[in-house]
């Protein structure tokens, strides 16, 4: 799907992230995943449910996986430079200045003894050594770009609502003009009205600064109008990728199809009358000890199209026809 000859902005190759659990076992969160973000201004929504590994992927790109997790193999290249092996000072420059990340819980980890503006000033002073008065001016400007008026710039965390706190977090993430913004469920904890505002605020800033955006979420419905492309993740791997509207209108992978079919929204009743579908028991589907490299399609237990090949061969993410759609499914191979 990426056809240029210049280096992509971000290239993840065969990334494996594992978490050690008790009894010396490990769970594979990201399974041999490859992903590219070709250029500035490329917006990608990453959709997955719990256990898909989407957050681990985000953290892997930031090289901020902490024990008991670890990146067991693979590479992350930013503008051609390998991120997983650079010295700490360069890593610091990479984070915040080139790629920055907004976490869902970030709004709860603001420093309670610092004002909204202080948080941004701190980022500017620490990374760019900006003198304080200039940093303060810059901070106020950033805050107004996220909709926080100067009068509230000196409020403390407990004086700000959830939505406002998240906006401070966004301002911090944008402070050093990164080229790629990773947002991991930034609005899940917010009420639906505030959520909408934050999303449109994000959209405006991303478009105005020509940022690339990797928006990680479990809710497909909020991506419309926010990102141009979508990638669907299931159990550590990307199973489908393509332009947002095309994938929504015509999902190729059975999992994507299932997600869209069971979408619960206010404007439409879901396609099938999903009865009390019997939950396939844990042993068939959810064995958490799926190791990397197992050679069958992980969706086989729930897939209504599964056939013999699916049980013995792992499908590879590949291009379908012309255009820019990718699917990892034997139906199309």
């Amino acid at each position, binding site marked *: 799907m990426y056809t240029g000859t210049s280096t992509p902005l971000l290239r993840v190759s065969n990334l494996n992230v594992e978490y050690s659990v008790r009894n010396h076992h490990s769970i594979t969160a990201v399974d041999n995943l490859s992903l590219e973000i070709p250029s500035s201004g490329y917006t990608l929504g990453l959709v997955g*449910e*719990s256990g898909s590994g989407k957050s681990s992927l985000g953290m892997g790109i930031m090289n901020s996986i902490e024990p008991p997790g670890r990146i067991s193999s693979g590479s992350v290249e930013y503008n051609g430079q390998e991120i997983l092996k650079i010295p700490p000072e360069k890593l610091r420059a990479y984070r915040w200045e080139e790629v920055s990340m907004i976490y869902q819980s970030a709004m709860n980890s603001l420093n309670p003894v610092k004002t909204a503006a202080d948080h941004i000033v701190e980022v500017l002073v620490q990374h760019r050594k900006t003198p304080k008065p200039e940093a303060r001016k810059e901070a106020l400007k950033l805050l107004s770009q996220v*909709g926080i*008026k100067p009068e509230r710039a000196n409020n403390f965390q407990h004086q700000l*609502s959830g*939505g*406002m706190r998240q906006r401070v977090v966004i301002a911090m993430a944008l402070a050093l003009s990164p080229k790629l913004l990773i947002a991991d469920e930034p609005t899940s904890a917010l*009420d*639906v*009205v*505030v*959520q*909408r*505002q934050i*999303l*449109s*605020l994000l*959209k*405006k800033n991303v478009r105005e600064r020509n940022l690339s955006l990797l928006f990680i979420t*479990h*809710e*497909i*419905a*909020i991506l*419309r*109008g*926010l990102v141009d492309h979508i990638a669907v993740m299931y159990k550590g791997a990307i199973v489908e990728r393509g332009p947002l509207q095309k994938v929504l209108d015509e999902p190729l992978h059975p999992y994507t199809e*299932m*997600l869209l079919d*069971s*979408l*619960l*929204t*206010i*404007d*439409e009743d*879901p396609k099938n009358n*999903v*009865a*009390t*579908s*019997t*939950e396939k*028991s*844990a*042993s068939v*589907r*959810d064995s958490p000890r799926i190791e990397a490299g197992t050679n069958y399609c992980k969706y086989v237990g729930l897939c209504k199209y599964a056939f013999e090949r699916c049980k013995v061969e792992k499908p590879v993410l590949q291009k379908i026809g012309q255009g820019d759609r990718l699917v990892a499914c034997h139906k199309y191979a």
Partner: protein
Amino acid sequence: MSQIRIGLAEHAGGTVEQAGAILQVEDLRVAFKGQGSLFKKAPDVKAVDGVTFHINPSEVFSIVGESGSGKTTIARCIMGFAKPTSGIIKFDSADVSKLSGGTLTEYRRDVQMIYQDPFGSLNPREDVYTAITNPIRALRGEKESLKLRERVFELLGEVGLDAPEVLDKLPHQLSGGERQRVNIARALAPRPRVLIADEPVTMVDASQRLAILSLIRDLKLRHKLTVLLITHDLATAKTMGGRMAVMYLGKFVETGSTASVLSKPHHPYSELILSAAPKRRSGEVPAYDELEISEQSEPPAVGCPFLPRCKYSTSVCKEVTPQLEEKSSSHYAACHNPRNA
């Protein structure tokens, strides 16, 4: 006594003491002590500020509101886990606050709850069998027996789980959807008449939500259950049908049939959350509105609590606190300038 009855009859919202209502809540108020500092006493927080409604047998009633609206507090009061500051909750015409001992046990048999957190609401040390039989043993006094085992198999089948597979599993060995089904089975175990579902699918993966809600709906029909649904998600309320109330800062601002409220909302707040809800076919992320995003704040002593965020306000909204009044057939709203009325 009759004086009070008349007062109730005039109470807006069409919720006169209904004969045959299985659950009746009258002017419920719950206030939490303000958290002040040593020098400044913070005012009490009015979590629930005068809520009145009734639910008829076999009906679904949804309370929709965002966080901080007070909806969960109502549910907890009905379950007896929170103490009302004033107001009455009646179950089958019996005052819930007066229950104790044997009558409380009966009440717990009749009114059960499905919790929001599928993982946290199950004891991590107890397997599925124990979790489901606990309430049967405690509330119905049944002892371990073949009949009990059969009942568990029956319940697990009803919630769509394969009994032999899950019986001896611990919560962390199950998926989120499975845990919630166990939760539901447990709630059904003592054969209740009323089910309170507190955000039943909020912490469940998107792909399982519809299935779980359909399950609840089917169970309601099969067992003629009365369901009180607490949620912030309009789509969830829509799936369950019945009647609903929209709650804002401790008060009901709109009540009526779910279909009516969601298709022709009267209150500007209902309209707002309806437009903000994610949709399948439309409503993509809009262009940024430069207006500072105002959020919920302390309700004023007089006047409409939604005033700071309302685009349709007029001078009367500041001076007169709106009450729930019928604006279209069986559809009530607390607004001086209702929409679609």
